[in-house]
Each structure stands twice: as structure tokens, then as C-alpha cells.
């Protein structure tokens, strides 16, 4: 059971794990309100990757990962997830245009 310190590494490794075995891999989320702790686990019953946090800023990251996993699980491991993670990029581009118009 490995706890990852880097969010990016955790995400990359978990997506890799999923693509290798989409049927066996599962994503688990455990939340304890009394302790204020959130633990994420991705496992294919052979390897186990975990990420724990007590920071509110990580909720957004978890949200994104939720969307990515959901898209992969429903559409398939080869699904294009750029639209899920690319939505943020699109929003950023729009906001930049907004700033320009105000000037």
C-alpha cells in the first residue's frame, strides 16, 4: 500500500493501472468528517495506489479525477478524456478573451 505525495504522479499511475486492466481496477474514496480526512485508493487487486489529504484545495482535484474515471469506466479505457480534463482549458481560454474585451 503506497501513499503518494505527488497528485500528478498518483493520477498518472492510476490511469496507467486502469488502462492495463479496466475490468479489475477500482477507484475508492473514503471520507471521515470527524477527522477531516479524505483518502483515495486505486487498485487492480495486485497493486495499490493511495493518496490521503486533509486539504480543501484537493477536493477540486478529486472532482476532476472522479470525472475522468467515470468517463473511462462508462466509455471504455480508450475513451477520449481530453474533453473531461480539457473543459478547464476551454474555460481558461474564454476567461482570457473576457479580460481583453473589458479593456
Amino acid at each position, binding site marked *: 500500500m503506497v501513499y503518494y505525495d505527488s497528485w500528478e504522479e498518483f493520477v498518472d499511475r492510476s490511469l496507467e493501472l486502469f488502462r492495463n486492466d*479496466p*475490468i479489475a*481496477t*477500482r*477507484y*475508492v*474514496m*473514503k*471520507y*471521515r*468528517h*470527524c*477527522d*477531516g*480526512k*479524505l483518502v483515495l485508493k486505486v487498485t487492480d487487486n495486485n497493486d495499490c495506489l493511495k493518496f490521503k*489529504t*486533509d*486539504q*480543501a*484545495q*484537493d*477536493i477540486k482535484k*478529486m*472532482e476532476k479525477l*472522479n*470525472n475522468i*474515471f*467515470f*468517463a*473511462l*469506466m*462508462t466509455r*471504455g479505457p480508450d475513451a477520449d478524456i481530453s474533453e473531461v480534463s480539457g473543459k478547464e482549458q476551454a474555460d481558461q481560454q474564454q476567461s482570457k478573451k473576457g479580460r481583453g474585451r473589458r479593456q
Partner: protein
Amino acid sequence: MVLLQADPFLSELTNMYERSTEKGSVWVTMKRSSMKCQARLKKMANKGEEVEYRCLVRATDGKKNISTATLLQVLAVFIARVCNEIMTRLKKRLN
């Protein structure tokens, strides 16, 4: 294990989070599943039929189990929103 539709599952999930504020944990698991048994899957593979996969989402508070199997992307967004409102106990960044 109670298999529910998406909407009742989400209401029950929200209830679970609300009930577990003082003590306890809530586990939410997501997995790809065809919702069919091995025998059926083999038959379908032999016939060359395409297997449809869904996302199986399970939740438990240690006592009660609920689940739903769906294709709705909205579910993932909703779960995230529920988490956002409920996970208020996590520390805010100081800077």
C-alpha cells in the same frame, strides 16, 4: 446490497454523509462493470455480441450498502458537488 436508480442513490448518499458527521466514514467505490455474470459473458463472447459496460458506483457508511450502475456522466458531477458541500471539514489553504 441495494441496487438503486441514479436519483435515489444520490439522495441516500447525501443522507449517509450527513449521518456520518460526528463519527464514522463514508466509502464510495467506482468500478467498470457489465453487470452480467461470468457464464453470460462467456456466452456473449462466443456469439460475438458486444458487451455493454457501465460504471458501478457503491457507497457504504459501514452499516448500510447502496449502489447504482449507470452511464450518466452527470452522476460523477453530482457526486463531486455533494462532496464539495459536505467535505467542509478539510483544512482551507492559508495563503
